[in-house]
């Protein structure tokens, strides 16, 4: 019984391990501090945004605006936050609040989240163009040095991923309020019947999503040192894929922060895997799709067998 409830996190771990082993087997030189850092270089912002997406999926909604929002944050970071830190922080805080307000609006009017966030993606994109009409901007120095810090033993990307997974695990799985939030995804009616205000819980989930998406945008600029309005558009699909790959489900509040971070790492690795194998880079994106399908097929087989036994 215990195994059954835990295989959900087992599968993402196994798929990442297999992929990593294959990479090291094909390219033993990647098995080094520098090599691993290169493999997972871009994983940190993706992992943060995947956590953001997970917060929304946790309450049975979906966010199509992650890509545009992270791009907007990147543009703000590379301009406002650099030139006028105070104003920059205020604007970013306002963005987090607007995410929370969006969650409340979607719940209060019973709107389809998929369309509202689709609309928001246009708005975020438009704001990003306002702030940074053409690619450019500069990463704040402190951010640049933070993202390129070289901790001993474990590379920055890995250390940061472990930190993100640990913090969000405590927040979503261990803490009391995280438990209630997952309860909203599982059975909102009974949470409401127990005396909770579901609208506030939804706003909280959305607000946390906004917060992690803000972190994602900041981290991204730290790595790329400049920004443009389309810099993170592919995050929308990547984050959805990452959550599902990490054992999450679209409905029922079944999410795993550790799994989501592993899912993000797996997708990042799937893309860099081929170039390390010195195979054509044409298949980089396709490899992500194939990994997604393979893992989800494996999950189906596991669940079937679990149900049969």
């Amino acid at each position, binding site marked *: 019984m215990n195994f059954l409830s835990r295989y959900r996190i087992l599968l993402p771990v196994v798929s990442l391990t297999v992929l990593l082993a294959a990479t090291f087997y094909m390219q033993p030189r990647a098995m080094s501090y520098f090599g691993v850092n290169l493999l997972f270089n871009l994983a940190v912002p993706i992992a943060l945004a995947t956590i953001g997406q997970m917060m929304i999926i946790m309450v049975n909604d*979906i966010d*199509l605006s992650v890509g545009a929002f992270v791009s907007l944050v990147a543009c703000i970071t590379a301009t406002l936050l650099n030139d006028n830190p105070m104003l920059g922080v205020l604007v970013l805080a306002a963005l987090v609040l607007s995410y929370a307000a969006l969650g409340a609006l979607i719940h209060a*009017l*019973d*709107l*389809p989240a*998929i*369309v*509202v966030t*689709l*609309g*928001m*993606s*246009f*708005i*975020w*994109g*438009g*704001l*990003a*163009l*306002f702030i940074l*009409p053409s690619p450019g901007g500069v990463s704040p120095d402190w951010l640049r040095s933070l993202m390129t810090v070289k901790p001993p033993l474990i590379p920055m990307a890995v250390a940061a991923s472990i930190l993100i997974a640990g913090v969000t695990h405590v927040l979503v799985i261990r803490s009391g309020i995280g438990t209630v939030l997952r309860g909203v995804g599982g059975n909102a009616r009974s949470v409401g019947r127990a005396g909770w205000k579901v609208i506030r819980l939804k706003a909280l989930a959305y607000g946390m999503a906004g917060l992690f998406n803000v972190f994602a945008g900041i981290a991204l600029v730290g790595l790329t040192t400049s920004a443009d309005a389309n810099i993170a558009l592919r995050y929308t*699909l990547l984050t*959805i*894929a990452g959550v*599902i790959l990490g054992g999450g489900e*679209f409905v029922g509040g079944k999410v795993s922060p550790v799994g989501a971070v592993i899912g993000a790492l797996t997708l990042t690795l799937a893309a860099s895997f081929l170039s390390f194998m010195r195979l*054509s880079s*044409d*298949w*980089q*994106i*396709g*490899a*992500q*799709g*194939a990994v*997604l*399908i393979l893992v*989800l*097929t494996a999950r*189906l087989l596991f669940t079937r067998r679990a149900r049969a036994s």
Partner: protein
Amino acid sequence: MKTLVSRPWLWSWVAAAAAFALTMALTGGGGASALAYAALGFGAFAAIVGLGQMLVITLGPGNVDLSIPATMTLSGTLALKAMNTEPGTALMGLGVALLVGLGTGLANYALIFFVRLPPIIATLAASLIYQSLAIWSNRGLRIKPPQELADFATGRFLGLPNVAWVGLVLAIIVWVLLERSVWGRWLLASGQNMRAARLAGVPVELVRATTYVAVTIFAAIAGYLLASFSGGAALNMGQEYLLMSIAVVVIGGTSIAGGMSNVPGVWGASLFMFLVVSMLNSYGAGAGVRLILTGLIIIGIVIVASTRRAQR
């Protein structure tokens, strides 16, 4: 006002007309026919993919096809490669494009049905593979379409762009299917209540399978035409149609809750999406304003639709 509320397809046409009029107000009526011609030409591509997306969204919540951009790119790439700029191959190229649409649709549905993936994740994962297939087969080359096909895609007939005629014919076909055919009734019933439809004897899986194939066939046709129109397939040619295809469906008055399609609305919304750009351009507003306005319109429409639902 009552007619506006009761006929959701009118909104998008009124909005398109307003954008057109506002542009004309600035130019004093100059270039009206050129603007209309361009709107019909560019709007046709959004309308064609929008019609397909509309069918899928009609299936009800959770149904959406995210593989439209990749399917467009793949069909454009493979069709142009097959034709290899040789004259007389246009129909063969169309056949290749249709086969691509059939194949991607069947693959998408296989993932949904056999692997039990939610449609969003199934079409997303599959689209990554289609995208790679397109990159791999294209190899960075830009193959020109055969001359007669390029002429057709950029040409006009009775004063209207040929691509608009294609979009119009497809719209009429979809309208007839939805309003007059048994399949259309089944689709609309499944979208309102899948369980009730099944209990009324509707073969709901057959309906779902054909719908997921139809959407990719529409995307394939759009990709084939767009590649011919723009003188070759580009790897990012479908990109903007991911959100666009959903946006024109929503703005066109189709219910995101399923069971209600709106064919004329999709066309009106497609024209509007083009005209609002040219309107804002002519007023000197940047792309940022255009995007924000589009987003506000989409959100405004779902809010109006939901309050209407609540009143009923």
